[in-house]
């Protein structure tokens, strides 16, 4: 949500706001060093009789560089280059403008001291009063000041502080010993807050997150933003929960010439909740270092104290249902026609329903190389190689090397392509003792050719539609795949499972993810796609696809628990998506299994945008034997102040609501208040968590309150877009 544009108080017009006294000077003029600038003072009359002083009277205006000052009477002493005003003073420079009872300036030191001040920033809606303001070049220091982006007459929220410093160069304000008043009622005291004085920066004051839910009772979180240096800053976030105690959160971001990263963590000393009386917390490090044009190193390490953490402390179904916490670190390289990586990866179980020992194998390390070279326009040679050492907490590990040289002959023209592809897959394992049945081979290998022929054509026609022209394409495609059968039942299963059957599944050369299994195949895929593109901007208005795999020879390679395959062929796969104007999109997906005459998958998803930020998402998902759900979410602007938000995720299969959310948002020109009620199921025991969350957004001061865009984005698709 963009902070209110400068002084745009459309929602609450206010006469008391300070008008712009002067057209804003072109910043270039005030860039010069003030000390060298001449001071021009105009008035109705002036008195040069004084020893070293000139007294100006009547509509006095003083100008220097970008500074302008207007008053009734001004006495300028030339020796000391100081002036004092009498009568109401108006002052303006590039960033800020005031009215004051009295002002005294020192042109040599380039300072102006104003008393009894009302001020207004030029670049954003920030304004307020101060007992005294000392302007020193770009720096302003207010004593006994107030700050808000609400118009002077309607103080829905206001900060008062013993001292507010404004750095116009950085366009940041810092308040010390600040008290936040909502509608005049003091609600929050902060030792130190920072806020942007123009809309260049998004960061700024981070406001309290106030909520109440079944798990933690009253839940109050107060981030404090510390801008330590231009290239690193930190946010400390104490969070007090009635039923658990005080949790400390910290986030440290850093940026150097070649690296950037973020260290984040929370820590709660011996949780007061019965049954959880130990230390709780999560820690994560994200870091990237560039090592030149082609190589970079990166790390994404995470650790959580216990499996109940996310369920206890996160706030949405999406974030509480985290099951595995990955940690990856490695060296990655990418160049023209090649990518390579050497990385390590491990998983930590973060969900009580995942039994210890069932987490995926650790890859300590995994080396991966993909290289591709066009020897001739119609001949390409490629190599895909992977070597991985698998390790596991409880299961025996092993090492696997998978090599796959490929020769591709991409023939084709504008309207057709035919690409025979011959590759040889050689995979060898060396297994630790524990994995072996007695007498089995410790270092099995599997070696087989993969032959693939991928051919397609493009037909098209243009036709007029409304006042534009549309281009419709018809793209038939045929893929023949032949992979001989190899006995693989006694090979280990480190990282391999059947892939979800879907549209890309029609064209893959392996039904399994991971190299532990290579599916046998003697099959042909027939598919067709038609698209309608708008020739004005290229946007795809419609696309519809249909396809199926026909088995000449039924596949035999399988893994325990894999879905049974029919002899004749795969399920039919149909997909379509439709976009009408900018407002309405529809997506359909259907899989029909002719062999068992049943629908494997049926999904409908539509989104409708209306009015100013109105949004409705409706979706239905059915996956045989797995789930059948409806999901409705909406944002309805009632008028320019009120908006209703909601989501309802209902499982038809279990006849139960999975997550429901209802919220109302009231917005004025400078304040947004959101109240959200959210209920979602919790993992075990099927009980539910009901949370009520209050969210304040002080416009123009950076977003304030629970990161609603993320919170609602989880719930309401594209809320933030």
């Amino acid at each position, binding site marked *: 949500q963009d902070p209110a544009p400068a002084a745009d108080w459309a929602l609450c017009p206010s006469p008391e706001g300070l008008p712009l006294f002067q057209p804003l000077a072109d910043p270039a003029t005030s860039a010069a060093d003030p*000390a*060298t*600038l*001449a*001071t*021009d*003072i*105009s*008035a*109705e*009359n*002036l*008195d*040069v*009789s*004084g*020893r*070293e002083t*000139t007294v*100006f009277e*009547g*509509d006095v205006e003083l100008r220097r560089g970008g500074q302008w000052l207007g008053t009734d009477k001004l006495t*300028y002493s*030339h020796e000391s*280059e100081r002036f004092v005003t009498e009568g109401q003073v108006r002052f303006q420079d590039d960033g800020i403008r005031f009215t004051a009872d009295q002002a005294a300036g020192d*042109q*040599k030191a380039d300072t102006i001291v104003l008393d009894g001040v009302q001020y207004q920033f030029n670049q954003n809606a920030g304004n307020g009063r101060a007992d005294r303001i000392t302007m020193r070049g770009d720096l302003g220091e207010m004593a006994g000041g107030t700050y808000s982006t609400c118009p002077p007459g309607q103080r829905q929220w206001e900060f008062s502080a013993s001292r507010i410093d404004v750095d116009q160069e950085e366009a940041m304000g810092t308040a010390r010993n600040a008290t936040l008043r909502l509608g005049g009622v003091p609600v929050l005291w902060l030792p130190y807050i920072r806020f942007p004085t123009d809309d260049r920066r998004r960061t700024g004051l981070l406001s309290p997150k106030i909520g109440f839910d079944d798990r933690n009772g009253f839940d109050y979180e107060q981030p404090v933003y510390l801008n330590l240096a231009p290239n690193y800053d930190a946010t400390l976030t104490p969070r007090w929960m009635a039923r658990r105690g005080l949790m400390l959160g910290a986030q440290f971001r850093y940026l150097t010439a070649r690296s950037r990263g973020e260290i984040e963590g929370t820590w709660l000393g011996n949780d007061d909740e019965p049954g959880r009386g130990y230390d709780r917390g999560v820690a994560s490090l994200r870091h990237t270092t560039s090592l030149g044009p082609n190589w970079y190193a990166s790390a994404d390490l995470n650790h959580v104290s216990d499996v109940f953490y996310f369920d206890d402390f996160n706030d949405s179904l999406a974030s509480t249902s985290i099951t595995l916490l990955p940690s990856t670190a490695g060296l990655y390289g990418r160049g023209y026609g090649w990518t390579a990586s050497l990385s390590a990866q491990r998983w930590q179980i973060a969900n009580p329903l995942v039994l210890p020992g069932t987490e995926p194998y650790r890859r300590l390390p995994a080396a991966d190389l993909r290289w591709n070279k066009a020897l001739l326009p119609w001949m390409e040679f490629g190599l895909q190689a992977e070597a991985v050492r698998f390790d596991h907490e409880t299961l025996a590990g092993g090492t696997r090397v998978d090599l796959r040289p490929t020769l591709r002959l991409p023939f084709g023209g504008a309207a057709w392509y035919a690409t025979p592809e011959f590759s040889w897959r050689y995979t060898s394992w060396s297994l630790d003792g524990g994995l072996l049945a007695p007498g089995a081979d410790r270092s099995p290998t599997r070696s087989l050719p993969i032959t693939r022929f991928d051919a397609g054509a493009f037909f098209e026609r243009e036709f007029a539609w409304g006042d534009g022209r549309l281009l419709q394409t018809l793209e038939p495609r045929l893929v023949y795949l032949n992979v001989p059968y190899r006995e693989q039942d006694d090979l280990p299963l480190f990282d391999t499972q059947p892939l979800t059957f879907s549209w890309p599944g029609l064209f893959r050369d392996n039904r399994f993810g991971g190299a532990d299994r290579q599916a046998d195949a003697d099959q042909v895929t027939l598919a067709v796609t038609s698209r309608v593109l708008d020739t004005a901007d290229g946007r795809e208005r419609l696309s519809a696809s249909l396809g199926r795999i026909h088995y000449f020879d039924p596949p035999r390679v399988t893994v325990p628990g894999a879905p049974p395959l029919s002899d004749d062929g795969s399920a039919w796969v149909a997909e379509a998506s439709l976009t009408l104007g900018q407002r309405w999109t529809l997506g359909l997906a259907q899989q029909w299994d002719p062999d068992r005459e049943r629908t494997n998958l049926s999904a409908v998803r539509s989104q409708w945008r209306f009015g100013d930020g109105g949004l409705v998402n409706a979706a239905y998902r059915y996956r045989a034997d797995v789930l059948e759900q409806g999901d409705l979410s909406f944002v309805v602007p009632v008028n320019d102040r009120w908006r209703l938000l909601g989501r309802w995720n209902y499982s038809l299969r279990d006849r139960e609501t999975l997550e429901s959310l209802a919220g109302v948002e009231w917005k004025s020109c400078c304040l947004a208040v959101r109240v959200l009620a959210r209920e979602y199921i919790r993992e075990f025991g099927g009980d539910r968590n009901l949370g009520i969350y209050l969210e304040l957004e002080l416009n123009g001061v950076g977003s304030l309150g629970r990161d609603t865009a993320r919170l609602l984005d989880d719930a309401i698709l594209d809320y933030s877009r």
Partner: protein
Amino acid sequence: RSTDRSQPMDIDADSTDALLGDDAVTTMNGNVRIRQGTLEVDADRAEIHRAGGDISQIVLTGAPARLRQVSDTGEPMDARAQRVVYDRTSEIMVLTGAVLIEQPRGSVRGETLKYNLDTGRIEGGGDGQGISMRILPKTAPAN
């Protein structure tokens, strides 16, 4: 400056047509130069009005007429204007037309200025233009 008035005033010009008589007007044309104490006046044309034998008013015009003087505080003043009317009885000098008064403290500009030699007060001539003074920072060389 206040001492100037007691100083002898000598005036000369290319041509003068003086009319005798206490209330006559003397008109001088071409390179008019008036010197009295620290007061130095140069103009193209001057009219000197007399009342009761004393000079009551001097009207100077030039392109521009120029008037220099040193104030009691020792500050030199250099004024230029297309037309200067100096009324000796009220000690008011009215300068009109691209008026520029330069002093070390700053230069004053305006279209119509009333300069009171006694009080040192300069008034904008009420023509809506007002007057303005440009003050240079001490460090910068006077332009």
